[in-house]
């Protein structure tokens, strides 16, 4: 019998074939949480494969370490097949799935969404110019902003919630306890698995050499994003909770969160994009490379336009920059359930499920 993979294997079957080889080998156990999860099982249902795929963060350590990669007949490429399974799952879980296909695979579509978002904001600013209001609200009233962004924020969240439910039932998740959450959030906050264990990083932009560059860039993006989010949330809180309306001074919470957040987000996204151009595309899901790249660009653009807008305070550039920034944010929010952005949600879900299995 040969373990050559006939081309007729479905994605999940191909992943299962590879995972079973890993389970007989186990050499990569120390890289990440995928391998310990593999060694806890003997047989892998489709849902198990989905769960393993979402535990993988594509560090590629197990590819370069594998003695069974092509031209060996076992043809292992675990990072690639798990990436494909992930993308496939996110598409299946998304509602409507077709949108996920469009935005995941096509950078052009994401760029188009961006253009549409910006154009919409230009239109809103020119058509809905308020008669009074300070700062940004001189260009677009608070009411108009809320009218645009509240649905643009809540709708994607609802779609993601639907997707996560589907994921949870596919991987056989059970009731989530505080302990599960604590373990998962702890791992996520430290991006523990991105550390590569004793290997000190990923095998990414320099082939089989380990570096921390991807981890650091990802840290910057994640914390930058969370700071920006905290900035907006604190603004909302000040507005509604304390009746303090924008614009806020430099030493206000929205600015203290927003400025470093914007800088981190922008720099992190630029580095991630650069790293992505250096890494071997065949070790990820090649079909979504463009979509992922565009998504990183969109993230970076969100941070960069926000910073530019702040820098332009008091000049004539505020109006166009406001449209640019808010349009970017709008495109980002609306495409969230269908873009690479969902990976954060599914990854957290996978970590929670992993914590459940570990402690069951």
């Amino acid at each position, binding site marked *: 019998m040969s373990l050559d993979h006939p081309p007729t294997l479905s994605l999940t079957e191909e992943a299962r074939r590879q995972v079973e080889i890993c389970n*007989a*080998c186990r*050499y*990569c*156990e120390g890289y990440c949480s995928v391998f310990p999860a593999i060694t806890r099982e003997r047989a892998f249902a489709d849902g198990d494969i989905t769960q393993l795929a979402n535990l993988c963060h594509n560090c590629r*350590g197990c590819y*370069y370490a594998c*003695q069974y990669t092509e031209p060996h007949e076992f043809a292992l490429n675990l990072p690639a097949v798990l990436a494909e399974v992930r993308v496939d799952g996110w598409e299946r879980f998304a509602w409507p799935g077709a949108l996920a296909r469009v935005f995941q695979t096509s950078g052009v579509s994401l760029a188009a969404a961006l253009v549409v978002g910006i154009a919409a904001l230009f239109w809103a600013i020119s058509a809905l110019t308020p008669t009074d209001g300070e700062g940004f609200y001189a260009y677009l009233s608070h009411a108009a902003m809320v009218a645009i962004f509240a649905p643009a924020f809540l709708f994607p969240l609802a779609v993601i919630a639907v997707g996560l439910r589907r994921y949870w039932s596919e991987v056989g998740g059970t009731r989530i306890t505080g302990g599960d959450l604590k373990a998962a959030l702890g791992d996520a906050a430290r991006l523990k698995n991105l550390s590569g*264990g004793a*290997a000190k990083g990923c095998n990414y932009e320099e082939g089989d050499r380990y570096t921390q560059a991807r981890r650091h860039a990802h840290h910057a993006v994640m914390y930058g994003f969370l700071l920006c989010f905290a900035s907006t949330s604190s603004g909302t809180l000040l507005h509604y909770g304390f009746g303090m309306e924008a614009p806020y001074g430099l030493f206000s919470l929205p600015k203290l969160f927003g400025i470093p957040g914007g800088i981190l987000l922008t720099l992190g996204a630029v580095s991630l994009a650069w790293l992505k151009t250096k890494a071997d595309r065949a070790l990820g899901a090649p079909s979504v490379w463009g979509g992922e790249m565009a998504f990183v660009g969109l993230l970076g653009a969100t941070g960069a336009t926000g910073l530019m807008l702040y820098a332009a305070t008091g000049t004539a550039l505020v109006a166009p920059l406001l449209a640019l920034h808010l349009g970017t944010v709008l495109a980002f929010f609306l495409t969230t359930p269908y873009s690479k952005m969902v990976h954060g949600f599914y990854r957290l879900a996978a970590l929670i499920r992993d914590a459940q299995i570990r402690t069951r």
Partner: protein
Amino acid sequence: MSDLTQTLWDLIVVGGGNAGLCAAIEAAETGARVLILESAPKAYRGGNSRHTRNFRCMHQGPLSVLTGSYEEEEYFDDLLRVTKGKTDEALARMTIRASEACLPWMEAHGVAFQKSLSGTLSLSRTNAFFLGGGKALVNAYYNTAQDLGVTVAYDAEVTHIAIEDNAFTGLDVTLDGTTTRLKARALVLASGGFQADLDWLADAWGPAARNFLIRGTPYNRGVVLRDMLDQGAQSVGDPTQCHAVAIDGRAPQYDGGIVTRLDCVPFSVVVNKNGERFYDEGEDVWPKRYAIWGRLVAAQPEQVAYCIIDAKSIHDFMPSVYPPETADTIDGLAQKLGISGAKLRDTIETFNAACREGEFMPTELDGLATEGLSPPKTNWARPITQAPFYGYSLRPGVTFTYLGLRVDETARVSGPAGPLDNVWSAGEMMAGSILGEGYLAGFGMTIGTVFGRIAGQEAAAHVA
């Protein structure tokens, strides 16, 4: 290629596995100009070393991932036991003592370690596991060597070593289909054993060897070893001996590596092509017995055997890479395996009748033995009764050969007229100097690392 011929190398290392890389790194660190000639293409560089998972390391207290302590005496005793005394005590003790300093050296040169793998807890004190296995180790060494300015030529098979007046003067290497003479001031030979040359194996073992599977690289064909022996180099080790274990009969001819091992023998009944049992499957725990089963299976008709287990035992061992054959009856299973149903049923029924009551304990010698059966099964003897029934085929899988070059404690090779001026050897190619017989898990990489480093240091001192 012309670049290679135009340089007068300080050191040429033949073979880019663990031993060769350690030698190259040590020499390059002194500033020597080093060339590695590796017969495999880049994707298959690293020979058998790319299939390894750990090395055995002496340590006087917890060290990196190693727990407790593992001192010289215990290590040496372990070695004596497996080699049945066929070892050179001075060389062996030197190797054992030197292993302690190897672990930090390896870490400093890019090797990362991990806790012992699940299912190998018994090795957490004695063996340090490479994160990602031997291929990750090999990659790390190639990167370190590259950073030190070492030149590597792949697809470069060395075919002849020129020796004049007890000294190496140059070698012939096949590059891009043409044979070229390269010159260097010193030579380290680290091109492994000859197990991938089935003709040579058949000469030593008889025609049965053609049915053997080779667990590691197809590139270790012993070309340089034979060339050196033909020129009168002193050898050690028995040419008829090789380390062979029983592996899954469906494994590829070469490079199947670790995943093709089968750990089910102790929990099964093993029969040959004729459906007959031939050895006590429960003699001892599997890690202590898997090596003798290579030979046992090699002695059976067509060099094949079959492990028969039932549903009770299917989860008692590490998962296999190939799924077992499955059937609801013994007859059905026999048919799938291609052996006589009547004979297999008879063997299983006789075996079942010889089983007795008792507590089954899969992880220790439970003494659950058959009664009045020949050959007996002395542990884990549970009747094969519960469908579905499973069957795996077994074949001998050769790990390495023992015949090699004799070296002294400075890794120096001897010709017919005594030690050669400028030739050293390391790794599997000289392992017979210490391992006359048997094998101690993780000792191959220890020998390669210790002697590779020594060979590199000695060669560098020679050209300094």
